[in-house]
Every structure is written in structure tokens, then in C-alpha cells.
């Protein structure tokens, strides 16, 4: 089976229903050459599951195929960031934080504020980011964590916001130098040197060209409005 994910032609035969469903909307029938071949097998899923008994076989496939895709995407010039990606009017806003801080909860507030027609959750866990001829873009991927919040869409990357919980709503532009380690904590640094090199190279370029913010916020539509108004300001 072939798929097109983050503008890469991917070859893979899903084993279990969970991942098959998530990948369905990425099916590709054209003739373009395969760029990424994913190699997960049922035997390997069984082996991984034996090592990590808190996971189901379906989850093992999902997680390890996601990791393999992530590493191979780096060699194709893309990366995945642990973030919730919300698109409004063709521009994508990324909200990144450790698990449990409330990335999805925040982007849900965007949908309340703008309505679900205008605010689209492209991906709730690991959207792909890459630089194209006309700038940085975000792609939906099948790797959306527990939720099914993922769309096979692409939009311009408007900004990245490092999210923190707070009692009031405050947002500020971050100096790239202070943002580096924070954002790197939300990407996986691969073990292989050539891949780690590609990631750092890409991040260097990303920080030069894409604004990064830090926000403390409550769970509210006000927070969504503030984030949108602050982040939309640049580049439009």
C-alpha cells in the first residue's frame, strides 16, 4: 500500500486496524517514486509488545511505525514536533508542551472561539513540519496520539507557541536562543548521527525564520483569542 504523508511517498502494509484507519485518508495511487519504506512486521510488534506489556499490539505498531517514519522523514527534509496544530484561514499555529499540560485543551478553545468550520485541528500530537520553496509548512500526519484529531491537510506555519498552564493569560515572543532547548525537548533527537545532524540543521533554520512564543494561559476562549491575535500579527 502506498501513502502520501508530509509530501513523502510512503510504502507500508498496515498490520492492525488502529493504524490502518489513521492512515486511510493518506492513500496514494499515483506513480511517483517511493521515498520512505516502513519495515514494521507482525513478529516485531509481538516482540515489542512482550517488552512493553502495558501496550497493546495495535499500539506497538502505531508507536514504532511512527518512530520509524519520524527518523526517515528527517532524511527527506521534514520533522515531527510534539504539538497540537490548529489551522485558521490557511495558517497553522503550533502549541507545544510536555504531555498533560493541555495542548489539545487549548486548541479546542480555538474551535470554540472560531467554530469548527474555521478552526481545524490538523493534528493533535505529532504534526510534520518542513520547509518548502515558499516557506515553512505544517502537514497533518496519521500520528495523532490517542485522539482521532488529524486531517490530511497542509498549511503555512505561522508560529510555534510553548504552552504553560497559568492563572492569567500572557504571551510573549521568545528569543530563539532561549527557545532552542525547550523546543528540542518536544522533538526526538535520533540516535544516528547523520539524522541528529539533519534535525539540528533544520531547527537552526526554523529558529531563524519562524517566530516562537511562550504562553501561560487558562483554559478559555480568551486565551485562544489572545494567542491568535499575538501570533497572527507577524508575517501577514
Amino acid at each position, binding site marked *: 500500500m502506498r501513502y502520501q504523508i508530509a509530501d513523502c511517498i510512503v510504502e507500508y502494509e498496515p498490520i492492525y486496524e488502529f493504524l490502518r484507519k489513521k492512515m486511510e485518508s493518506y492513500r496514494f495511487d499515483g506513480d511517483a517514486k517511493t521515498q520512505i519504506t516502513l519495515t514494521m512486521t507482525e513478529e516485531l510488534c509481538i516482540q515489542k509488545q512482550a517488552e512493553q506489556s502495558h501496550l497493546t499490539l495495535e499500539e506497538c505498531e502505531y508507536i514504532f511505525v511512527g518512530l520509524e517514519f519520524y527518523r526517515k522523514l528527517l532524511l527527506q527534509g521534514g520533522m515531527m514536533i510534539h504539538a497540537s496544530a490548529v489551522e485558521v484561514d490557511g495558517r497553522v499555529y503550533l502549541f507545544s508542551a510536555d504531555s498533560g499540560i493541555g495542548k489539545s485543551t487549548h486548541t479546542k478553545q480555538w474551535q470554540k472561539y472560531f467554530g469548527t468550520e474555521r478552526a481545524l485541528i490538523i493534528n493533535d500530537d505529532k504534526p510534520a513540519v518542513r520547509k518548502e520553496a515558499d516557506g515553512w509548512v505544517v502537514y497533518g500526519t496519521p500520528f495523532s496520539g490517542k485522539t482521532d484529531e488529524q486531517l490530511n491537510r497542509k498549511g503555512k506555519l505561522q508560529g510555534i507557541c510553548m504552552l504553560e498552564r497559568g492563572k492569567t493569560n500572557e504571551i510573549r515572543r521568545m528569543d*530563539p*536562543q532561549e527557545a532552542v*532547548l525547550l523546543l*528540542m525537548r518536544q522533538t526526538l*533527537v535520533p540516535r*544516528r*548521527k547523520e539524522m*541528529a545532524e539533519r534535525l539540528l540543521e533544520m*531547527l*537552526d533554520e526554523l529558529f531563524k525564520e519562524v517566530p516562537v512564543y511562550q504562553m501561560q494561559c487558562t483554559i478559555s476562549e480568551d486565551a485562544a483569542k489572545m494567542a491568535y491575535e499575538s501570533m497572527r500579527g507577524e508575517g501577514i
Partner: protein
Amino acid sequence: MRIKNGFFMREVAGKYVVVPVGAQTNEFKGMIQMNQTGAFLWKALERDLTEEALTERMLDQYEMTEEQAKNDVHTFVTRLLEAGILEV
């Protein structure tokens, strides 16, 4: 002393970032960020050097007193030793 194998440094957004690669990822979790001077010392320590030799290199490179250089090198080396990044 020298930097152990399996670390990789690159400039990211005007600062230098060091990440572990290969087998080193099992030993060392996380990342290190350093400034220009740190990066200079790091590069020097990719080859085996004593603390004295490193101090001399620093004096060749930067306008500073011998005492400053000694202190800076000692602080840097101590931190890397504590983090388990140097082999002696």
C-alpha cells in the same frame, strides 16, 4: 582528557547545542547548550589535552588574563566531568 565518543555539537540559533548519538544515548540523557567560548573549549577537547594545555589555547584565542582563563577552563572541565562527558 578528552570528550568521549558519541557526542555531536552544532550551532542552533546562535548557541551551540550538544546531543548524544549512538550508544551514548543510553548513558547520557538530554542536551547541553553552550556559548561561543564553551564551543571553542569543546572543539579543543575533541583531542586529548591537559587542563594546562587547554588554558594555553584559551589564552591564544581570547584576550584575557591567565587567571581568568584558568578559572573558566576549570569550571568548564569540572562541569563536563560531573556530567560524565570527559574521559581522563
